[in-house]
């Protein structure tokens, strides 16, 4: 398939691996921020192709994984209400809350619809004026512009029966949270290509400078990732700490200005709690004052649910890159994709699920 198979070519992958081997003179640790990249790395065995001296650390960039447990509980509570049609992206449906996941609520009679875009939820709202339609707005800067467009659309159509539970989070504050953590061993970053498609990469420049780390905006195909790693290692070996762009076919320095504009018009920046990590200042979006009538949290008064995460789950350590999934005592026995304790085991982009699916030996 054009524009895909070229980036999964075996010969080119081996050639890049060779270049990396020739380049590296010492040990380096690089974090790929995005869960989509983690998925590719584990699925294609990219880490197995690298020399032992290069360690890839998996970052917190899976929006499904970092959505706090109380928000899942709020979603489940709203979704279980009689007059509500609850709309969500597919992979949020299986994320465990403290009592149930959304699929469980659906099995108990909740009207839960899987949608591909928040605009689908708008359509459902327009077609069901006697129902309350709630959209679970999850994702990084990648999905936030479409959510924002949905809010403007709802306003334009005068839809009083549409609201959203907003859980949008932002990448740069998460990178800073990782870098300012104790004993941070990460020396370079692969930034998430599609987040930068929207945002550009100017906001990463002060981070690279402040913390003295190279950041390479990287795509998601195996060759993208290998090239991103090569670019990052080249900077490390040469002692440079710049922001560079591997994902030239999608990302420009300034990003998609129209998308950023629409997003900023609807959302303002707020502190957010990240599942497994905790509160990160200025790390998420909330609806601006003008749009609070679309805030499902206010509309349904479920704001006060507070819950603890399972004690055995080390997803926070995994999401900060301090531990790899197999280092968790629960990994593969108490915690599996069928019975996830923590969110990284749920989403196909979660590091634990990726290791479980592609790596965990299950012999006879």
């Amino acid at each position: 398939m054009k524009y895909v198979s070229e980036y999964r070519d075996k010969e080119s992958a081996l050639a890049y691996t060779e270049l990396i081997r020739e380049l590296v003179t010492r040990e380096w640790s690089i974090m790929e921020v995005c869960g989509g990249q983690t998925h590719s790395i584990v699925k294609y065995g990219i880490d197995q192709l690298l020399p032992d001296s290069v360690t890839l650390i998996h970052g917190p960039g899976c929006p499904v994984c970092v959505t706090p447990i109380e928000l899942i509980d709020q979603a489940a509570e709203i979704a279980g209400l009689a007059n509500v049609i609850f709309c969500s992206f597919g992979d949020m449906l299986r994320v465990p809350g403290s009592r149930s996941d959304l699929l469980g609520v659906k099995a108990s009679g909740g009207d839960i619809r899987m949608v591909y875009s928040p605009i689908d939820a708008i359509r459902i709202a327009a077609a069901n004026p006697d129902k309350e339609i709630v959209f679970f707005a999850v994702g990084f800067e990648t999905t936030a512009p479409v959510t924002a467009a949905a809010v403007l659309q709802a306003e334009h159509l005068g839809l009083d029966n549409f609201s959203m539970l907003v859980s949008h989070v932002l990448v740069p504050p998460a990178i800073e949270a990782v870098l300012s953590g104790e004993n941070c061993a990460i020396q370079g970053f692969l930034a998430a290509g599609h987040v930068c498609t929207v945002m550009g990469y100017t906001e990463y420049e002060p981070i690279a400078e402040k913390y003295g780390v190279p950041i390479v905006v990287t795509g998601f195909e195996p060759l993208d990732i290998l090239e991103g790693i090569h670019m990052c290692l080249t900077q490390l070996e040469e002692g440079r700490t710049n922001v560079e762009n591997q994902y030239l076919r999608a990302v420009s320095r300034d990003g998609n200005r129209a998308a950023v504009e629409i997003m900023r018009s609807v959302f303002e920046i707020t502190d957010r709690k990240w599942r497994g990590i905790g509160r990160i200042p200025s790390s998420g979006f909330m609806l601006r004052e003008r749009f609070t009538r679309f805030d499902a949290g206010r509309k349904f008064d479920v704001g006060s649910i507070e819950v603890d995460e399972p004690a055995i789950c080390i997803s926070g350590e995994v999401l900060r890159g301090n531990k790899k999934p197999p280092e968790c005592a629960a990994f593969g026995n108490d915690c599996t994709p069928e019975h996830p304790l923590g969110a990284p085991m749920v989403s196909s982009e979660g590091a634990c699920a990726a290791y479980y699916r592609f790596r965990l030996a299950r012999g006879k």
Partner: protein
Amino acid sequence: MNNSRITEMICPIPLSDYPEITMAHGGGGRLMNDLIGRVILKAFSNPILDSRHDGAVITAGEGRLAFATDSHVITPLFFPGGDIGALSVYGTVNDLAMCGADARWLSAGFIIEEGFSMETLWRIVVSMAEASRKTGVLIVTGDTKVVDRGKGDGIYINTAGIGIIPEGIDVSPSRICEGDVVVLSGDIGRHGIAIMAVREGIKLEGAIRSDLAPLDSMARDLIREGLDIHCMRDLTRGGLASGLNEIASMTDCSIRIEENSIPVHDEVLGACEILGFDPLYVANEGRFVVILPRENGDKAVEILRRHENGHQAEIIGSVEKSSYADLLMISSIGSERIVDMMSGEQLPRIC
């Protein structure tokens, strides 16, 4: 008959795990396998059922029969490349064909929702008649029930079928052994993507049609040409990955496949890329795998390629000594990974 033993049995899936059936229990992945293994097989266990073939192989007098059943609950009822009528006939015929049997007789059970269009019912029944004519089966018994409006999704169809297994034919997962090769009859993922595209209103550049097709003539030709077929399996829910995992789990061997040798149509691949699906797990309704000794592999490919629905047949892997997982794959860039059974259903990814 002594029923006390059954009534005393405790439901083996703890209530705390899943107090209710979820959609994932029907998704063709590990949860469904668990449900079948821990509830259904536990309650009904007997040697014929426990062999977990596509159909039951029964000895009756001198001969052997294959017996299979399949229920069809599909939305939409008419989709690019087929409809629930043809699907309900081919589904059972294909299960029988995978046992090496000539499908002969089918039953048809209809559960119809009050208010269902008579004209639509007629179109479905005509399609069933056409499908049974094509495959040479007779629909010889049936049942019709009507349920209240809102208690069914238009129409559900169950078919059960009986086929005759020719003398000397023994097709069963238990015969798989090290050194066998895995032949795939064609490109994968069309049915799942075709249904998904219609159901979810996803507009693809070219319309993907379901691969829905009878497999009986291909299976029959393989047998007629005297190939020593160890196992055949049609790939339905859960796709190629789940089918091969199920087969491998019933043997003492592992199966290793090559990603680059598995045909996937560009449109299917494109849709999978957009949705975050892996074509290995997407449903098929007209594809099957044949596992047979290496020396028969090329011949099997040649025979399958004579058929319209088999022209993309390929050897995609081999059966090896038991390894650290049931199913392994050499990825497109040359590294090795586990191909696990799907957990529940594939859910589209956020980004």
